[in-house]
C-alpha cells in the first residue's frame, strides 16, 4: 500500500482536527442543533415532539414575556439587582482571602482547606437543606447578645439589629459561594514573581503601595476572568429564581415555546452584559510592554 504523504502544514492541521473532533461532534449534537431548535421553538409552536415538527408563529412568545406576563420582568430586574450587589462583594472578599492565604503564615494548608469546604457542600440539595434551617443567619447573630451586649442592642433598636443581621446573612452566603474565585486569585498570586516584591522592598515601598502598584496590575487579567466567571455563575446558577420559573413554564405548564423565548431573552441579556464588561475592563488589564516577557503575550479572553 502506498503511504499518503502530506506536507507539514496539512499534517499539523489534520492532527489538530483529530484532537478537537470530539468537541466538533459534541457541539453539533448538544449545542448547535439544540440552539437552532430553541430559536425555532421560540418563534413557533410545537406540533409534534418526535421529529421536531414546529410551526412558525412569529414574535408572539417574546411579546408575551414583556407585555402579558406580570412575573417575568420584575423577576428579571430582581436577579440583575442581586447580581450587581453580590458580584463586587464576591470579588473583593475572595481577593482579600486569597492574599491572606498566600502569605507565609502558619497553618496555611489548614486555612486553604477550610476556605474550600463550602464549595464542597455545593449549591445543590445539601446547601438548600442547610439554608432552610437558617444557617446563614446564625453565623453572626446579634440577637443572642454574645457579640454585643444586650444593652447596646436595646439602645440601637430592633430594626437596626435586624438590618445588621440581614447584612451579615448576605455577606456569609457571598463568602460561601466564593470558593472557585479564591482559587483563581490564589493561582494568580502564585504566578507573580517574588523578585518584583523584593526589589520594591529595597526601594522602600510599603505593603500598601506594593498592593496597588504590583499585586493589582499583575493580577488584573485574572481579575477580569474572575469577574466574568462570577457574573456568569450568578446568572446561570440553577438555583436562580428566573431559571426555575422558565423550567416551571416548560415542564409543569408544558409551554415549551414560551419557555424557549424567555430563555433567549435571558441569554441575550447575559451575552450583552458579559461583552460590555469585557469591553470596558479590557482597557484596564495590564499587559507587559516588554516583548521578551513571553508569559504576558497571552491575553486573557
Amino acid at each position, binding site marked *: 500500500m502506498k503511504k499518503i504523504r502530506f506536507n507539514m502544514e496539512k499534517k499539523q492541521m489534520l492532527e489538530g482536527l483529530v484532537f478537537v473532533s470530539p*468537541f466538533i461532534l459534541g457541539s453539533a449534537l448538544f449545542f448547535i442543533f439544540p440552539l437552532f431548535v430553541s430559536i425555532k421553538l421560540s418563534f413557533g409552536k410545537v406540533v409534534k415532539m418526535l421529529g421536531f415538527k414546529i410551526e412558525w408563529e412569529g414574535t408572539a412568545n417574546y411579546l408575551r414575556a414583556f407585555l402579558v406576563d406580570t412575573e417575568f420582568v420584575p423577576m428579571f430586574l430582581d436577579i440583575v439587582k442581586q447580581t450587581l450587589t453580590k458580584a463586587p462583594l464576591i470579588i473583593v472578599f475572595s481577593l482579600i482571602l486569597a492574599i491572606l492565604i498566600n502569605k507565609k503564615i502558619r497553618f496555611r494548608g489548614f486555612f486553604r482547606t477550610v476556605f474550600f469546604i463550602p464549595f464542597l457542600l455545593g449549591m445543590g440539595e445539601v446547601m438548600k437543606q442547610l439554608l432552610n434551617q437558617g444557617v446563614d443567619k446564625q453565623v453572626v447573630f446579634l440577637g443572642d447578645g454574645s457579640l454585643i451586649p444586650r444593652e447596646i442592642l436595646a439602645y440601637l433598636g430592633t430594626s437596626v439589629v435586624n438590618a445588621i443581621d440581614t447584612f451579615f446573612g448576605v455577606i456569609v452566603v457571598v463568602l460561601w459561594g466564593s470558593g472557585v474565585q479564591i482559587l483563581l486569585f490564589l493561582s494568580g498570586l502564585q504566578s507573580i514573581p517574588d523578585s518584583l516584591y523584593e526589589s520594591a522592598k529595597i526601594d522602600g515601598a510599603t505593603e500598601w503601595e506594593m498592593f496597588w502598584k504590583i499585586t493589582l496590575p499583575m493580577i488584573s487579567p485574572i481579575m477580569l476572568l474572575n469577574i466574568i466567571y462570577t457574573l456568569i455563575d450568578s446568572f446561570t446558577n440553577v438555583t436562580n429564581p428566573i431559571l426555575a420559573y422558565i423550567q416551571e413554564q416548560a415542564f409543569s405548564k408544558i409551554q415549551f415555546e414560551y419557555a424557549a423565548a424567555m430563555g433567549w431573552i435571558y441569554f441575550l441579556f447575559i451575552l450583552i452584559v458579559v461583552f460590555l464588561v469585557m469591553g470596558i475592563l479590557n482597557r484596564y488589564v495590564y499587559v507587559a510592554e516588554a516583548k521578551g516577557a513571553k508569559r504576558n503575550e497571552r491575553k486573557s479572553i
Partner: protein
Amino acid sequence: MKERVSRGIALEKPAKRDFPVMQRAYEFITNPKRIGAALTRTGTYLLLSGFSFVFLFPFLYMLVNSLKTNADLNNILVNWVPRDLKFENYIIAYRALDYFTYAKNSVFITIVTVIGHLLSCSLIGYGFARYNFPCKKVLFLLVILALIVPVQTLIVPMYMVYANFGWLNSYLPIIVPTFLGYGLKGTLFIFIFRQYYLGLPKDLENAAKIDGAGFLMTYWRIVLPIAQSALLVTVVLSMVWHWNDFYEPGIYAQKATMTMLPARLNNIVRLVNLPPEEMFEDMQLIDQENSINNAVLMAGTFMVITPILIVFGFLQKKFMQGIERTGLTGE
C-alpha cells in the same frame, strides 16, 4: 529618635548577657517596626480565624446538630455542646435515605462523568493549545458561548433531542455529553486545559516526536502525565459539581429508582413534615424518642456529603499544590 535610643542600648553589652529576656523585650518595645510587624501578624491571624469560623460554620452546624437529642434540639440554651450525643440519628437517617441504593447511583454517575471530562477535555484543550486548523476561532468561540448559555435556555430542545434518541429515563443524557467535551460546565474544563498547555514548554513533545512517537502516542505518554495538576483540578471541580447536581438528573432520569443521593434528602424533609402517626407507620418506628426531626435531617445531610469530603481529603494536598503550580488560569 527612637532608632538612636535602641542603638544606645545595644552598646551596653554586659546587660544583654545578664537578662537576655528582658533585653529582648526592651528592644522589641522600643522598635516600632517590630511592633508593627507583630501587630500585622496578629491581625492576620485574627482575620483568618474569623473567616475560618464563617467558612466552617455550615459544616460544624451540621455535625453538632446531627448529634442532638429531641430535647436538646428544642432547648435554645443548648447551642454548640449537646448534653447527650445521639448517634441513633445516623441510623434513622440511613434508613430514611435508603443510603446504599442511592449512593450507588450517585457514585456511578460521578465516576463515569469525571472520567468523561478528564479524557475529552484534556484532549480537546490540547488541540486548541498546540494546533492550527480551520475554524479554530469559531470553535473556540463555541467553547466560551457554551459556558455562557444557561442550561435552562437549551433544556427544552435538549429534552426533545434525547426523546428522539430514546435516551429518556436513562443516565445517557448525563454521561454521553461529558465524553464529547460538554455536560456540566464541560467547556470550562476545556478552557482550563487549554490555558495549562499554553503555559507548558513544547520541548518534551518535540523530543518525543524526534524519537519517532506519533502524535497520539506523544499526547498519551508525554503530555497527559505532565498535566497532572490540571487533571486534579478537573477531578475535584467536576466531582463536586456532579455530585451536587440535581437539575439535569431530575429532568432526564425521573424514575424513582434512578434518583441521586442528594435528592433523597427530600424524603427526610417529607417525613419530618408528616403528622406523627403517619411518620411512625412509614418508618416502622415505635417510640417517640426516635422520631424523625431536624437532627436526623442534618445527619442525613452530613452522610450525603461524606463521600465527597473523604475523596477531597485524599486529594487535598496535591490539589492545592496543583493550584499553586499551574496557574489554573494561565494568564
